[in-house]
């Protein structure tokens, strides 16, 4: 890559410039002007981030079937608007330690997760997962190891890692979901040491173990790594989501844990049943909060 191309790449949608500009905005824009600023920035990115917009539209066609294309365009804008709010709230928490109000749905499962000796927190690209992990780690004084899909831009990835680790007060560690063979062993050791591993289970990236399941009546591939880990380590999987409900307000949705219990039954069947349970939970939460499903790549097969 030439020097000019490298410099120009910083301005790409996922480039570092926008992340740094977001930090600038949050330390310079009074809270009451943020809704207006985010509104206009979303309009700009709605046109600039064409691949993300197309991906949201293709997912919406399945999640909200029978809707007019125009209505889905509006929904795609709303999804990007919510996305802008969640990344800015996460950065706000990191930079200014701004308070957010939370309500909890499924508090008993959250209690179980917080007191578990080693567990898998299975979440989705939904709502404010970055802020959620940071707040959970800080408030409950539990270390969390977050497994993320690798960022396209190296500098952005570095910036995000630093942000998350700073927001979580050092209790959030990042691991990237690549074809690295050492990662599963690392995660297994961490679980056995009592850590909580947070994994996004709504999207399978290339070269990562995955299995087919049904979501909204379509065949999709979801990562099966979390279920294999749960089976080997014999720890529960806690589905957990954090959705934005209003200005500086969030709802933590904890669902019934999924178990991959080792019995005489075939391991494949146990894991497949667990994936099906997860896809039912995922479908249920996405259906209720479709405008906060930030899966910016197409999930469903092309029609």
């Amino acid at each position: 890559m030439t020097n000019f191309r490298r410099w120009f790449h910083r301005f790409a949608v996922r480039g570092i410039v926008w992340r740094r500009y977001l930090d600038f905005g949050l330390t310079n824009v009074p809270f009451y002007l943020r809704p207006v600023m985010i509104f206009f920035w979303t309009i700009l990115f709605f046109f600039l981030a064409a691949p993300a917009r197309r991906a949201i539209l293709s997912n919406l066609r399945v999640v909200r079937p029978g809707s007019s294309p125009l209505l889905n365009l509006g929904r795609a804008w709303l999804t990007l608007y919510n996305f802008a709010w969640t990344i800015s709230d996460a950065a706000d928490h990191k930079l200014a330690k701004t308070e957010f109000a939370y309500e909890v749905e499924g508090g008993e499962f959250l209690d179980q997760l917080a007191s578990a000796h080693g567990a898998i927190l299975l979440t989705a690209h939904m709502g404010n997962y970055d802020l959620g992990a940071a707040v959970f780690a800080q408030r409950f004084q539990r270390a969390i190891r977050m497994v993320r899909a690798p960022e396209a831009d190296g500098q952005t990835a570095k910036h995000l890692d630093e942000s998350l680790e700073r927001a979580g007060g050092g209790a959030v560690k990042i691991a990237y979901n690549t074809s690295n063979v050492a990662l599963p062993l690392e995660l297994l050791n961490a679980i056995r040491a009592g850590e909580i591993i947070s994994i996004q289970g709504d999207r399978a990236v290339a070269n990562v173990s995955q299995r087919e399941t049904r979501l909204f009546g379509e065949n999709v591939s979801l990562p099966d790594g979390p279920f294999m880990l749960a089976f080997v380590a014999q720890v529960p999987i806690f589905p957990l989501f954090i959705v934005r409900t209003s200005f500086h307000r969030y709802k933590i949705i904890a669902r019934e844990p999924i178990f991959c219990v080792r019995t005489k039954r075939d391991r494949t069947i146990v894991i497949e049943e667990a994936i099906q349970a997860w896809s039912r939970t995922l479908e249920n939460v996405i259906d209720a909060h479709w405008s906060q499903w930030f899966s910016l790549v197409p999930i469903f097969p092309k029609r």
Partner: protein
Amino acid sequence: MVFVSPDLSETMKDGGSPSGREIGYAFALPRLIARLGGRRARRAEFSRWEAYGMGILVFGVSCVFVAHTLLPLVRPAFAQLLVLLLLPFAVWAAFLLLYYVNSLMTALLRRFGLYSAMTNNLFQHHVIMSLTTLLALLLVRDESGWMKSLGVFWLGLLFLNLISILFLKFLHEL
């Protein structure tokens, strides 16, 4: 290193993080209104009405003022329509420029030890409030009824908020 709380969802609701039902306002006026209505509200940025309402009002006053200044200079109706369409984007860009200029001023103040807050938001807030008040004063002088009303509305809110600050200070709640 690991601390386990016996009832963490309660911790989140009551102690650890603010509960989802908690009321908080950044400005003194809604806090005072809540108090007069028998509800307890603390100083926090939890209100969407406050954030969206105030933001739209500040941005709206700027847009109305710029439109009021520009429109007489544009004659054809379609050009006026185009100006009205592009105006919010131009005002948005002007705000971005204003934040940048203010950030440079804050950097200068920090250098001389005259400003030490964690973020520049407070300084930006004072500049934006002053500018909006100035624009509102100019709108009050206008002959058009609704523009005058907008200016008076802003000045009224500002006055009531200042009174509320004094009132809450008197009650030791600020």
